């Protein structure tokens, strides 16, 4: 996997400190290092990306090679230290790996870290495959150390989660024996130092750009008056497209092909070689039209009469992932050769006519997920009150789907807690619930809660503590206590943190016990009369807890279908008007049994002991 290649490359480069915060598609890089750690590398999941970057920076100013990993929105959290570190510089090589997510497939934004590199005046590497990622991260460490600057390394999802055989180097760089931080005013950022370093940065960028013009993974080939430019995974799509068009049998026009693996500082000399003799250029890239703008700027600066086409001209889609089909279509149009896409081929045409209708299949909370129970408890107890539910980033964002429909807002990590405060200002008579997961609580929830306590904004903070970072692959965090070094640390207790920052009403509750949970929700809601109230729903993720026996529906007794209508559980199906539980998916959470008005659902092993006659509806339907 590309992410493993990045981790292995960092090991080959002699990395000493690896930090990060999980986020798709970056999450597998850091565990690759920790799994092979002989003990001399410090590997940690930090509480957030800002902290991770600062820990790595501390090691780097002392001379150690360090790497920090995150996804693109994580870089927004880490932007503050990164911008300043760009001015301060480093001693040991430091690579900031930021995985971008065109699509987006698992993200809030389609931001482009190459543009962040331009903004922060830092070099950036953009690998096209797992093989390249392995080699390029080693180059990135070397460049960083040589120029004394942090370096960005930006793979995208299809590189991170693509797999290919990677040839590993036999000899690994040896980490220096002993390092010692050398006290020096150069490590203390002050306006004067920033001014002086700013000049150095601007002087350094053209030097690196010149070096990048001969960099081994930037390539220029071909001849002709037409030019194609590409980067990253789109290079693969371009290669595929040229093969497809070539196989159609008609000759393709002569053309040049430029691949840019180091978009910033832009390899100007290489680009000028590319421009030589060209009339028209098509730039095929994902996310921002980064190379397109650089080429347009360069053409303007050099007063070249060359037309640069791409996203701005409508030749390449402005949003979402590129595909082989779309890239083939774009190149065919640019070359002026006919191309019939597969969708209108005979097989495609058959399908357009006769294809049976298929429902969408969005992601959902797992069967047995304790978040479902927590949402149901809040929903049921707030049925007659005006309540607004601010969500956050994690599996529980999936609580937005019907029938739960329990996420009214979602913005970014930690924002549920703070947006609820703004919503309260506008609607002071409503109840404002902010749902936050355990890992997100530590990441960026605590400061927001302090803000609510300080500004006397009464919200209900609902911590959905499932004892792991579930969405990104079950990473540990301060509340779980286990670390990437194999130690078990002192667990940081969420309830104690809440009490310490001044939350007066703090209650813990097992969300799988519905009646008790509903009573706890009402108590927390009422406690907002006295300020911020917190309710901690504690129940481990089904991926870290052993399953209970699965449940079964007594078809004779099944009448209400509450389980189907209210829960949205993937294990419960409707067959001939009756609820049926798929025992291979059921986790035995018991929630459906608790809401069934006819007592028709019971653990599989207890079925024979249950009465088969329906009982009258209970008082809490």
């Amino acid at each position: 996997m590309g992410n493993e290649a990045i981790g292995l490359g960092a090991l080959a480069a002699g990395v000493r400190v690896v930090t990060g915060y999980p986020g798709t598609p970056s999450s597998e890089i850091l565990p690759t290092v920790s799994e092979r750690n002989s003990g001399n590398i410090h590997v940690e999941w930090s509480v957030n990306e800002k902290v991770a970057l600062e820990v790595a920076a501390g090691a780097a100013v002392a001379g150690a090679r360090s790497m920090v990993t995150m996804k693109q929105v994580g870089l927004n959290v880490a932007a503050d230290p990164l911008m300043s570190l760009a001015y301060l510089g480093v001693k040991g090589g430091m690579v900031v790996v930021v995985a971008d997510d065109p699509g987006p497939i698992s993200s809030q934004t389609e931001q482009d870290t190459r543009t962040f590199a331009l903004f922060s005046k830092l070099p950036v590497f953009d690998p096209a495959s797992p093989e390249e990622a392995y080699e390029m991260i080693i180059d990135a460490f070397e460049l960083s150390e040589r120029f004394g600057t942090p370096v960005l390394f930006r793979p995208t999802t299809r590189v991170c989660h693509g797999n290919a055989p990677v040839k590993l180097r036999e000899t690994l760089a040896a980490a220096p024996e002993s390092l010692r931080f050398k006290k020096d005013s150069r490590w203390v950022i002050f306006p004067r130092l920033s001014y002086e370093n700013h000049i150095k940065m601007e002087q350094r960028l053209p030097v690196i750009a010149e070096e990048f013009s001969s960099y081994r993974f930037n390539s220029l080939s071909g001849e002709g008056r037409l030019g194609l430019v590409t980067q990253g995974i789109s290079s693969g799509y371009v290669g595929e497209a040229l093969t497809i068009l070539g196989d159609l049998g008609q000759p393709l026009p002569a053309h040049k092909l430029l691949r840019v693996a180091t978009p910033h500082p832009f390899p100007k000399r290489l680009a000028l070689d590319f421009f030589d003799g060209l009339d028209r250029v098509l730039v095929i890239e994902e996310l921002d039209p980064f190379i397109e703008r650089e080429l347009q700027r360069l053409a303007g600066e050099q007063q070249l009469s060359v037309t640069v086409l791409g996203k701005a001209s409508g030749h390449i889609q402005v949003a979402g992932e590129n595909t082989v089909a779309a890239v083939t279509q774009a190149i065919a149009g640019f070359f002026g050769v006919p191309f019939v896409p597969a969708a209108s081929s005979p097989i495609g045409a058959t399908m357009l006519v006769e294809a049976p209708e298929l429902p969408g299949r969005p992601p959902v909370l797992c069967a047995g997920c304790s978040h479902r129970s927590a949402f149901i408890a809040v929903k049921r107890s707030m049925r007659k009150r005006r309540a607004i539910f601010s969500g956050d980033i994690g599996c529980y964002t999936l609580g937005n789907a019907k029938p739960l429909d329990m996420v009214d807002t979602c913005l970014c990590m930690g924002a549920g807690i703070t947006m609820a405060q703004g919503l309260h200002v506008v609607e002071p008579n409503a109840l404002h619930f902010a749902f936050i997961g355990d890992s997100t609580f530590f990441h960026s929830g605590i400061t927001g809660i302090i803000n609510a306590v300080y500004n006397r904004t009464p919200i209900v903070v609902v911590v959905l503590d499932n004892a792991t970072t579930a969405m990104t692959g079950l990473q540990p965090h301060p509340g779980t206590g286990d670390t990437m070094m194999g130690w078990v640390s002192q667990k940081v207790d969420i309830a104690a943190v809440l009490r310490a920052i001044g939350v007066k009403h703090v209650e813990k509750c097992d969300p799988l016990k519905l009646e008790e949970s509903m009573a706890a929700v009402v108590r927390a809601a009422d406690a907002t009369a006295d300020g911020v109230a917190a309710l901690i729903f504690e129940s481990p993720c089904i991926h870290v807890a052993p399953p209970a026996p699965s449940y079964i529906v007594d078809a004779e007794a099944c009448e209400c279908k509450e389980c189907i209508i209210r829960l949205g559980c993937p294990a419960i199906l409707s067959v001939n008007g009756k609820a049926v539980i798929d025992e291979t998916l059921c986790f035995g959470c018991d929630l459906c049994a608790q809401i069934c008005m006819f007592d028709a659902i019971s653990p599989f092993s207890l079925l024979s002991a249950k009465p088969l006659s329906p009982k009258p509806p209970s008082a809490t339907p």
Partner: protein
Amino acid sequence: MKANIVIAGVGGQGTVLAGKLVARAAMDAGLAVRTSETIGMAQRGGSVVSHVRISDGPIASPLMPQGAADTLLGFEPGEAVRCLPYLRPGGTVVVNAHTVAPVAAALTHTEYSGPAMIDYLGKCGGRLVVIDGDAICAEVGSAKVLNVALIGAAAAAGALGLTLEQIEEALRKSLRPKLVDMNIQALHAGARAAGQAAPQELQKETQ
């Protein structure tokens, strides 16, 4: 030698591991491999697709264009239909007969019929191999071997360009030791199911 394989299923069904096993077997056979898979948010019960590309020459892109797959491995009939545009004319579809109903399908009246989907696959694909994945899982005693059973069926149908022995070896290298025997059993059960399904397909093709 070239084989383009699309794996379509529902998050949690084991599609990612299926892709890894096929890739492993191909790598061990000295072939070039590129794969791409869905990880992250979409894994939670959503539609998931993996691309596996095997070749004796260089492979440009991990994702293939529509109309390029030699083989479509469908873990579920609806998801197989969703990915059918990737299949090349005359390609092979190996599909599990058991449907996974989308959550809240009952609420939104979006239930669909597995047999109707399979019927449609039969009309569009070059070759269709339907296997009863549930029966194999029950026979082996684990719901988690569906992926390996489908690989067994595809390998037996000659749709992977890999032999059952090569896949067995990949299973031994990739899985925890205590899971190996069970999965090898599932592999061969899938292969046998494909053998039994074949005559039906010939019948269908001659209709």
